[in-house]
């Protein structure tokens, strides 16, 4: 799409926050318009990066599941992780990637809970890799002007 949606959404956000909201009455309406501007600014940032962020994250989690094959896990969890590790992104629509991400992150919780209580070197290394991925996941999601 041209002009770029990111630029259009950013412009609309600025229009709402800097021009329309300050002139709107009553105050509650101005606040609602301001929030709409904030949401558009967030969307502008997500537009370009969302698919890339999700593909990168889904691949990173699948890689963790492949590493988990070297760790002693109970049968059902090991089987679930093996099945998920074999997937790949073919449909790059954000909704499809999000659905896959939801399943992967749910399984990641189970893997993390299983690994963090084990004291062998392989488990400790995987635990550290999971924490590193969780930290990276927040960097991928950071929005401009976020408080932290």
């Amino acid at each position: 799409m041209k002009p770029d949606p990111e630029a259009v959404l950013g412009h609309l956000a600025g229009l709402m926050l800097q021009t329309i909201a300050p002139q709107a009455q009553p105050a509650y309406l101005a606040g609602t318009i301001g929030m709409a501007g904030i949401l558009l600014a967030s969307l502008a940032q997500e537009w370009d990066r969302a698919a890339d962020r999700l593909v990168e994250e889904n691949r990173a989690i699948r890689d963790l599941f492949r590493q988990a094959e070297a760790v002693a896990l109970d049968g059902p969890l090991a089987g679930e992780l093996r099945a998920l590790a074999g997937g790949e992104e073919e449909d790059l629509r954000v909704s499809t990637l999000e659905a896959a991400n939801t399943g992967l992150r749910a399984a990641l919780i189970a893997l993390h809970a299983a690994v963090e209580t084990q004291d062998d070197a392989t488990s400790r290394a995987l635990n550290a890799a999971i924490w590193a991925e969780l930290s990276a996941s927040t960097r991928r999601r950071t929005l401009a002007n976020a408080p932290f």
Partner: protein
Amino acid sequence: MTELSEDRIAAYIATRLPDAREVAVDQLARISGGASRETYRLRLRYRDAAGEAVERRLILRRDPPASLIETERHIEFAAYRAFHGTAVPVPQMLWLEQDPAPLDYPFFIGEELVGFEASPTALLAEPYLSKREQLGRRKWTILGEISRADPQALGLTAVMDPVAPEACWRRELDYWEGVLDEDEVTPQPIIRAAIRWLRANPPPPAQKISVVHGDFRTGNFLYDAAGEIHGILDWEMAHLGDPLEDLGWGLNRIWCWGQDDLRGGLLPRDAAIAVWEAASGLKADPAALHWWELFNCVKGQGIWVSSAKAWADGETRDLIMIVSAWRMFNPQDRAALELMGQL
């Protein structure tokens, strides 16, 4: 959402002021006043029994069809009333109505504190910027006063659920984990890891049972350009518990509005703790406070998750629900990671 009318409010107030004549309400306007109840500003005018004209600026808070936080309005009302006239500044509460008949949903009415600022981001510019340290000292002094107060002497043990000092942490963690279980719209691997750590490393018993405001943060008090605080608002999550719960919530990184390390946008963490300790007469044991700070990341994510679900389910279309979810999920996760040494 059902619209209010000035006539309906005036008719209700007339029933609460039987000696008043010519009761009238005007200038009714909805304002942004917390996401848990609809908040309206209005002007009340009437003649009293002596025939004198009376005019009051009031705030009406009405239950919404859906909310960020499920809360008990009578507890919020009681907390305001308990602290009115004490070292903890709050607006005077006038009437609580549990019957939905007069205005479609339960509500309460109190005085409006007029002419003060509440916005956290207003602190980022003058005339407030240079008053941040003073405001921070007042903020954590007032929290110390809340923590120091005797809930029984305030009459709040009659309306708030009792809790034993050793049970505070488990009750709160159970509740907010339950909220996540029920409302989570996407898996939360960071917060789930935090919950596992919190359960494996419980804090010591509370040093005393205090009134916990429940949402004591910048944005929930009224302040002025002289660095004074005039009203602590939004008591909808008030309960009895460990005073470190409130201290930990206010120190949460998600309230660092200036994208720096000033907690609540006002004071460095250690300075805020020192002010609270001096005012409360209590100690913030570092390990215990760390537990409560991490717990508050769970609580925060519970609130943001609930807001996302309420909007996704169509219970409400208030934009604050989406803003809360989109803007706070990730900072809350990052705050938890930092506290766990994993950021």
